[in-house]
Each structure stands twice: as C-alpha cells, then as structure tokens.
C-alpha cells in the first residue's frame, strides 16, 4: 500500500503493508531510528512521535492510518545540527542518562509545551506519565522541561 505523509517537514511516499507499524516504517523504511521499541504495547513511550499535533505510541499505529498525516520525530527537533532549546535544557540539566527514553520523552515534552507553554511541575509530570525512564527518577527531566518553559 502506498502511503504519503509528511515526516519532519518532508513529504515522503512509502510502499508498505497497511498493518505495518509506524515504528517499523520509521526505523526500517525511513532509517529514522530515534524512536525506540521498549515494550511493543504502548506502555513505555520510547516510540512516541507527534502525529497531527498529538503524541502517539508509534508501536500501536498501523501505517494505513497515516495517509496524509504530519509526523514529527526526535530527528525533527534539531535544526542545522543545532539542538533546540528543549534538547539543550535536557543536556544541561542532566535529563538524559542512558538516553533510550530520551527521544520519546522529548516528544512528549515538546507536545506539552506546544499547547501549554507555562506548565506547572504537576502538569509536566502528567504529560510525561506515559514515558518510562528507569535512570533519572524523572526529577531532572521535569527540571529540564520547566527550564525550557521559563526560558521561552
């Protein structure tokens, strides 16, 4: 099945079985390996991407649902080899340790800040509740998102 969609600002056409997971299309067909598979059932959020403004688990989305959609992955955050303010804050606050949850975490944070540029710590916690991190205890992730919001 041919699917046309916009990915990180570029229109792409791919030919894939309709039930192929968006996560596999990203990783295998488009070589965008930023989104990770941590559980394959929508629990860990490591595969989070933004589709038409909403965060989804790309491991649960069949590609046939993406016709005409606009997709943002972690690779679409930085521009010209420069980190965006959110990524920079993650780096400076120590919000990424092993880094495996980071792409999904950044996506959830980006999505939050898009709709709520001045979130409280509780709102930040709620926004990233679907992204599991085993390294940080979440504190420095919350710090980084809060700092980005304050600096914007």
């Amino acid at each position, binding site marked *: 099945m041919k699917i046309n969609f916009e990915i990180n600002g570029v229109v792409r056409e791919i030919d894939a079985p309709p039930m192929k997971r968006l996560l596999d299309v990203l990783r295998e067909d488009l070589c965008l*390996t930023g989104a990770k598979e941590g559980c394959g059932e929508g629990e860990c959020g490591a595969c989070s991407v933004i589709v038409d403004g909403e965060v989804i688990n790309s491991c649960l989305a069949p590609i046939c649902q993406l016709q005409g959609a606009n997709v943002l992955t972690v690779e679409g955050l930085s521009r010209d080899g420069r980190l965006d303010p959110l*990524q920079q804050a993650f780096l400076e606050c120590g919000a990424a*340790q*092993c*880094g495996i949850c980071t792409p999904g975490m950044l996506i959830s944070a980006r999505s939050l800040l898009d709709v709520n540029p001045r979130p409280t710590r509780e709102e930040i916690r709620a926004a990233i509740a679907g992204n*599991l991190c*085993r390294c*940080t205890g979440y504190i420095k992730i919350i710090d980084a998102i809060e700092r980005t919001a304050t600096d914007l």
Partner: protein
Amino acid sequence: MAVGQNVLRKEGFEKLTGAARYVDDITLEGMLFGKTVRSRIPRGRIKAINFDPDYDWSRVVIADYRDIPGENYVALIENDQPLLAETEIRHCEEPILLIAAESKHEAEIAARHVTIEYEEARPLLTMEEALSCEDIIYGSDNIFKSFLIARGDVDEGFRQADHIITGEYRVPHQEQLYIETQGMIAIPGEDSLTLMGSMQCPYYVHKSIKQLFNLSDEQAIVIQTTTGGGFGGKEEYPSVIAAHAALLAHKARRPVKMIYDRAEDIAATPKRHPGIIRHRTGVRSDGRLVANEIDIVFDGGAYATLSSVVLSRGAIHSPGPYRCDNIRVTARAVATNTPPNGAFRGFGAPQVTFAYEMQMEKIAAELGLDPLELRRVNMLREGDVTATGQRLNWSVGSEDVLSATVENSGYVEKRRKISQYNNGPKRRGIGLSFFFHGAGFTGSGEAKMKAEAGLEITPEGRARVLTGSTEIGQGTRTIFCQIVAEELGVGYDDVEIEEPDTSRVPDSGPTVASRTCMIVGRVVQFAAREAKEILLRFVAERFGEADAQLIDGWFIAGGKRLASFGEIVREYIKLYGELRAFARYANPPGVEWDDDTYTGDAYPVFSYGAEVAEVEVDMDTYEVTTLKIITAQDIGRAIHPLMAAGQIEGGTLQAVGYGLLEELVWERGRVVNNRLTNYIIPTSLDAPEMETIIIEKEYPHGPFGAKGVGELPMDGAAPAIAAAIFNATGAFMHEIPITPERLMTAIENMSATRAIDNPDRQ
C-alpha cells in the same frame, strides 16, 4: 578545572538528537535475525525435539549444543551453566535451540513449528523447598555457597543484653527493567568473531566467546554499542545472548542480530535475588547493640552464576553501618528450579538493608526509643570496626549524612506533628533509614583483578582514554574525561574516550560494583599522570626546564609559557612514535583481606547515606503515595555533582519501586506478568519530589577524593518508606513490596490482634 564542574555529557548530543546508535538501530548487509527456543518446564529431561515436517526448514538455520566448538558452558565463576541445554532442564525459559531467519517474523514462525517433548520432574521452586533437601538439585545440599562472618562472642553478647528482639524479613525478585532490552549482533570473520551489542562488561563477553569458540584473545572482538540502561542486568547475561547470536552466525556464516522483546527479556534474564533474612539482636536498655545474629538465605535460581558474590556482599552489609562487638552472620545461596538470579544495582545490599533497617525500627518501637537516637547511638564512626574486623580509617561520613538528612527534612518536628493528626481516611507518616555501601569488588577482588586503563595522546594533541569500562548512562565517558583533564592539565574538550572495543582498550574489569569512578577512575588518573610525566621529561630535555608544569594546555616554567600541549605532543610523536601510558590498580597500603577467615578490609572504603521518606496512606484503598524523599549521601568528591545527583535520584526511584510496586508473579517457576502492562515500575506520577544533598568526605585513594555512588542510592528508600508507613498506620511490614493487598492484610491483622488484646473495645 574540570573536576567538580557540571560539564556537558560527552555523548549528550547524539542521545538528544536520536543519532546515538543502540544495537537495534544497526543493520548490516546480509544480516539474519535470531530467535531462542526455550524450555516450558522448570525441571526434567528433553525426550524429543520435533520439527514440523510441513514447515520448510531450508528457510532457516538451526543451532543446538552440538554446534558449539568449545565446551558447552557460559564462563563465569563456577562454569556450571550450559549455553544451550543438552538433555537436562533446570529452569523454565532455559535456552534449548536457536533459529536464524531472514526476518524476525520468519524466525518467530519457525520457532512455532518446533515442539519439545519432556519427561517432567518435580521442581524445587522456593527457598524453603530447596533447604528441606527432600530432593537434591545441586551438590549434596542444594547450597551454591555459604559464608560465616564471626566477630566477638555472640552468646556472651546475648547474656549482656537487656532485650532480645527477633525479626524475619522477606524481599522479592526485582527486574532491572532497563528500557532497552537485551540485544546483540554477531559477525563471523575469516578466523574471528565480532560481537557488538548492549552490555556492561565487554571482557566478560570476550571471555565467554573465546572459550565457546576456541578463539584467541585477538580473534574474539567485542564492542559495546550505546547501551540503554544496565543496572546490573547487563553484567552477566550479555555473555549468553552474545554466544547465542555468535553460534548462529558461526553456522550461517552471516551476521546475526538477536533482540529480545520485553516478554522474553523479563521471563528469561536474571533478576535481583529474593531473600529471607532473620535477625536476632541483643540490645541494652539504652539502645546499644551487644549481640547481632543474622541468617540470610538468597534464592540463586538454577545455576550458580554470580550468586556467591551477591551473597558475600549481602552478608558483609547485613549488620548495617552499626557498631556491635558480637556478630555472627550465616549466609546461604540456594539452588531452585527458577531462572538464575544475578546482578542488580546493590548486589545483595538492598535486600539486607531492608532487613537491618526494619530491625532497627522494630528495636526502637519495642524499647520505646527514638529511631533517630537509636541510629546515633550505634552508628559506625571513624576508627570503629566492622563485622569483618575492618577499621574505618578514612572518609567516614556517617554522622554528616544523618545530620544533613534530619535537618533538611525537618524529621523531628514533622514526626512530632504527624502523630497528632492521624485519624482520618488519609494518614501521613515520616520514616528514616541509614545505610552504607562498599565500593569496588568485595574482599580480594580488586587486588586480584588489577584493573588496567590507559591514555593515548594523539598527534592532534588530544588525550584519549583507553578503558574497558562502559557508559551505560551513569556518566563514565564524561567523568573519565574530567579526571584526565584535571590530572593532565588540559581542557575537558581536549579529552575524548576510545570506543569500548576489546581490540582497542585494556580490561578495566566489569562496569559493576560502584567501581567505575572510584577504582577505574583512579587508574585513569594514574595513566594520565604517567603520560604527563613522560611529556614533562621531554620538555625538561628540550628546554632545559626541570620544573615545567602543564597547566590549561600550556607547558609553563618560571611563569613563562614554553610551548602548547599540541606543539610538544607533535614533536614528541615525531621523534618517538606513539605516546601511550597505562596503569593498573593496586589496593591502598594496609588494605588487606583474608578469604579463608572472611576477615579484613571488605572494601577499601564505604559510602554512607541517610534518607527520610514522607508518605500518605489512603486507608480506604491502602495505596501509599511517596510524597517526598530527602537524602544525604556521602560519596567522597563528586566529580560531576549534577550526574552524581542523577545517580542518587534514579537509584532512589528504583528503590521506591522495590519497596512499593514491583512484584513478579510466578506460576510453576515461570514469570506470568512479564510485560510492562503488569510488571509495574514507577512513572513520573509515582516519583516523589526529591531533595539530594551530596556530602563529600574525600577518600584519599580515590580520584580527587571520589568514592562510589552507583549502588548506594538503591539501598535506602525501601526501609525509609516502610518506616514511614509504620509511622502513619502502625503496620510494621516484614515484606516488600508493600502493595495495597499486603498493607491491607497487615492492617486487618493488626486490628484483629488489638481486638483480641482488648475485647471490650469491639
């Protein structure tokens, strides 16, 4: 100055842009996908392996134990674990057969067309069954290893005691739950094998592969890819998955990738050892401990793997950071027909810490003493002697961490207030824990290992660290570069780190045991010192300046710049070729251990921690919310304070999970909740606000005074939370995790007991 600065993480850019390459992000030409066929029974024999004749087996490559060129075992301590089962099955999920196919999907399908017939035997599934010796599955008594630690005269101690308090504590399995599952790629060469994947210990994999495939040091090449968390879970198991991938690659003559899905990862790979820990403590009326008798049983699972060393660390830590002249610790690791348990952050210490801290809580309650005062009266201070006879000569931050935690948390005031307002449907409680953790291998481990690391100075004037220690998120790459920058006298940005590849870096020992910073970091510092001395001798000859120094990238003498680091390096390399310096670890003078009597300096030094947890208990649902954790931890000099705090916060939250949430459910030797939907780890909504105070009691033999930080934070949260629940509800929990079900039972039993004591009040 680089040490003590919060410099940016070396591999941060890659991790933040999605560019970092984890093993599953790598695809090679002609690569096959591997799959493991595992046992469905916990104990028995394989009668037959049937391959469905309707499936086209030419589509796949199959390997079993007969394909192994070397001996069929995974090299570790005892070498008792086969890489693939031959006929005997000793646990569920034991690997039997390997399949490689063109796609993951095809390998899965092929695996479904294999059926295995078993002759089942009655399994031993619990520690009690193993100890009963009704059936023997290991040695003559089902015991992998036992230890005795004896100090003073326990019987005399009990005679001096005014009170004798007993307690039995139970701790569960815990899954490491790194978010990146286990994964490996094997690449067959002409006469070599290359493994690349997610791991903590490239040289463990190297050792295992060499033996299984009869390869020399050079023929086996092991490369760590960016690793998405380890927590001990990628200490020993990567040797197994690597060898499985290698066996398929060896047979297929093509690269093979194996990536576990979450269900296989939870079901089949090692976990934290469950344990039963019994305390019998003799106490004087003023709270002084005069006799301490502790019995520890850990469930090792079906093979010995690392159980002996986990048990040893558990036994040594079991009396806690408390002074007592009469101690007897007996410790046993038993064999059961469950998957082998192994390394998980803390390595035996979190288990015994829950027990000894709950025992302190119990002693305080039974004697009517203040729990804080009880700790103060007994705590180990500088000059005191531990259970193994180790005199604490340096860097003892015990009082410092306790004071800082108590003061910053307002523990005393809050505890007084809380007790006045706790009758509603939601009750608040505050609890304390105090703990310690020895950094580095236990006993003679480091002296025998002699960890090696090196420094190469490149013609471009950059310093490159050569070490087998791996970055698993904890900051190895960053802190090693800081240590080198500081010691050498160059900028942090001028230091880089070689890829962890056994063909390019020396064996620095495994990345475990809170040893990377303190032990290997020290070796890295010595290698940098050696490189600097070589260059200073060269500068002395070249300029006739015997007193030159290297500061901020310049050779300086008499206040005058002689030449830049880059210039001197270029000249040196032109004349002499490469510039590399290596160093090896040796224990500080006076640090000695006797394996036969189990006495001496168990660790060169301990790190110390204290923690206060505040909880709210919903008396209708029995759910516990951890509101806040305040902790002070003495880790010696913090090379990178921000990352050190990150270690403390992350370890603390894993310990919150251990205390409250994480429970594996077993049925006939098999984990049945092997998914993220039903094995629950803390989310951002479960994470309390945390306040972390770093206490820097410098250790004179660590790099710039640093001690270990990795595991200490895993020790303190479970008992602090249990103490807070006790404070809130009066329910004293002997077992974790404190799930609503377990808390409800405890509170209901408590009301029943009260009802019996006071029948009139019903």
